[in-house]
């Protein structure tokens, strides 16, 4: 297959191998299909509680994690399913967690809002807006103090940029020059409140100036643009030059959570953003640049579909935690 070598070739096509790009497309489909599967399971009563879907934001999650290894850490948000899959989690264990099963990543104790996979470096989704920001700085402090070269990516939403924790975290990351990349997924609304109303600066990346770090705003539905911004920020972090702030402009197609009646945004707006589907766009880009053909792209999607079906089966057949174990995992078990 011919690789495009022209000047105007998108960064991602130049930077990553066809196998990596194919895997990125697979993960984007996996996120979309996983969340559709979770939504359907919720409707059928297999999942209780609530969940926050990131459908429409898949490019942001996958492109951000492209150059991360398992040694690199992420902190995630209540809208964190995509981050978890992008970082390498298994959808079977994720579904098991959502179904409240002992085989889930958190042994059924965390659910959607606390989904984590410590082995692949995902320190966890967080139910508190802004909760992960200082924690990410702490993870970066560990890397620096122990002389490791891993970096931490801190995902947060536009809503979190008005939490005190955001400002405290960015300031400390900057004064100590820590290897952390703050990735804001600006999907325009913190629940129902528009970022344009709630935030004093036009772009959240503008906040970076106050903390003496680079700040860039990119089209978060453009896989390559996100991957390129992260490439620069990760290189800076690994070189010991300190933190960066990257703002991915994106949009969630679904409501904030299962209780959302979408009163704060218009149908036109939702439809307009749905026409900018990041998966369709990335797929078209890969085909246009000869990375994949139509049949190969279909196969990638089918592969993700099969993984989701198998994951739901695994979750359904998994055992529930024992009722007597309600206090298990509160503290370390003391060796007898």
């Amino acid at each position: 297959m011919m690789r495009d070598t022209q000047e105007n070739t998108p960064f991602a096509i130049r930077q990553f191998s066809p196998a990596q790009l194919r895997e990125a497309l697979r993960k984007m489909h996996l996120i979309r299909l996983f969340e559709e599967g979770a939504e359907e399971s919720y409707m059928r009563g297999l999942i209780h509680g609530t969940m926050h879907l990131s459908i429409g934001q898949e490019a942001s999650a996958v492109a951000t994690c492209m150059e991360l290894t398992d040694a690199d850490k992420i902190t995630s948000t209540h809208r964190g399913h995509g981050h978890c899959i992008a970082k390498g989690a298994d959808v079977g264990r994720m579904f098991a967690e959502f179904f409240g099963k002992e085989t889930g990543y958190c042994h059924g104790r965390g659910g959607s809002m606390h989904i984590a996979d410590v082995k692949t470096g995902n320190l966890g989704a967080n139910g508190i807006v802004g909760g992960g920001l200082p924690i990410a700085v702490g993870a970066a402090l560990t890397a620096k103090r122990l002389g490791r070269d891993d970096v931490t990516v801190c995902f947060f939403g536009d809503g979190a940029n008005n939490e005190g924790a955001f400002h405290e975290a960015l300031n400390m990351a900057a004064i100590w020059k820590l290897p952390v990349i703050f990735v804001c997924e600006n999907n325009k609304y913190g629940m129902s409140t528009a970022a344009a109303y709630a935030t004093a600066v036009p772009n959240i990346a503008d906040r970076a100036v106050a903390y003496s770090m680079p700040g860039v705003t990119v089209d978060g539905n453009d896989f390559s643009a996100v991957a390129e911004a992260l490439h620069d920020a990760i290189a800076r972090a690994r070189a010991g030059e300190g933190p960066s702030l990257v703002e991915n402009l994106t949009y969630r197609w679904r409501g904030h959570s299962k209780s959302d009646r979408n009163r704060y945004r218009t149908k036109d707006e939702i439809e307009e953003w749905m026409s900018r589907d990041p998966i369709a766009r990335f797929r078209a880009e890969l085909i246009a640049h000869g990375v994949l053909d139509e049949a190969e792209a279909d196969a990638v999607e089918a592969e993700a579909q099969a993984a989701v079906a198998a994951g739901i089966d695994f979750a359904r057949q998994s055992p529930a935690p024992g009722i007597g174990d309600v206090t298990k995992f509160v503290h370390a078990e003391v060796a007898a």
Partner: protein
Amino acid sequence: MNAQVQIDAQVRELSYAEAIREAMAIALERDPAVVLMGEDIGTYGGAFQVTGDLIDRFGPDRVMDTPISELGGAGVAVGAALTGLKPIFEFQFSDFAALAMEQIVNQAAKLRYMLGGEAEVPVVFRMPSGSGTGAAAQHSQSFEAWFGHVPGLKVVQPSTPAEAKGLLLAALADPDPVIVFEHKLLYKMKGPVPAGHYITPIGKAAVVRPGQHVTIVASAIMVHRALEAAAKLAREGIEAEVIDLRTVRPLDRETIIASVKKTGKLLCVYEGVKTLGVGAEISALVAESEAFDYLDAPIQRLGGAEAPIPYNPDLERAAVPQMPDIERVARQLAKGEV
């Protein structure tokens, strides 16, 4: 982890603050993952001179001044603990932990559980607390009960220099978050402290004065006031058993219940606000236990007033239990006058 108790024969007189500093120095020497964090703990030596000269001995990478960012600073400590460091984070005053409740209560306390045991947060939060310094309402509080209400946290309250060192080293050896409430009025108090590394176990109270007429369960500075009261009562033939609680969470049920079964009388003394305080929990655990049948009098509590800590020195003293209060109520209990 080497939790083995190694007590050198050498015992010196150290202040409570010096004992805590010695514990931190030992920890810094033994484990490269230990870092100290907090406001003005470096060159300034800490608001109460607890870290003192540690920055000169271990450098600014291990004795880190943080900006005045309690929430963020506590969160950095949580994230560092989650990924391999063992931070000891000093709040300048325990009152300021109110700014960091999110990270302590929603994050540190719950991460192990939320993640199904797949992660741990071995962080220590040191909190100078208590009244008696004339610092009024926002620099004098006792928040033990707040944190003691949260599953996932352990809460200790040393009353002597030796305990302060041993409990801090125990907190560091613990794989879960531990809050250490240090009483500000005790920082200058001297007492015998064994050299070297040793651990005072978390979750174990100590009978610091045996007696058979009334049990007084006290913590931190109240232990000293209770001992003083017990010495006075002894002259009248009343033998009070004084228990130094040491740990608020988890409570040492066995020691408390055994003592109440022996004396049949219980007085709880604590500095935190009386309502819903530590003594309420101790009273309830005794009332729910087999010790209930042994009670010869209603359980009594002496706790902080239902008011913020006032500035006026007489009001300030009146706002928390003092020695004469303990002496009076313990006497009434022992004489069957309650």
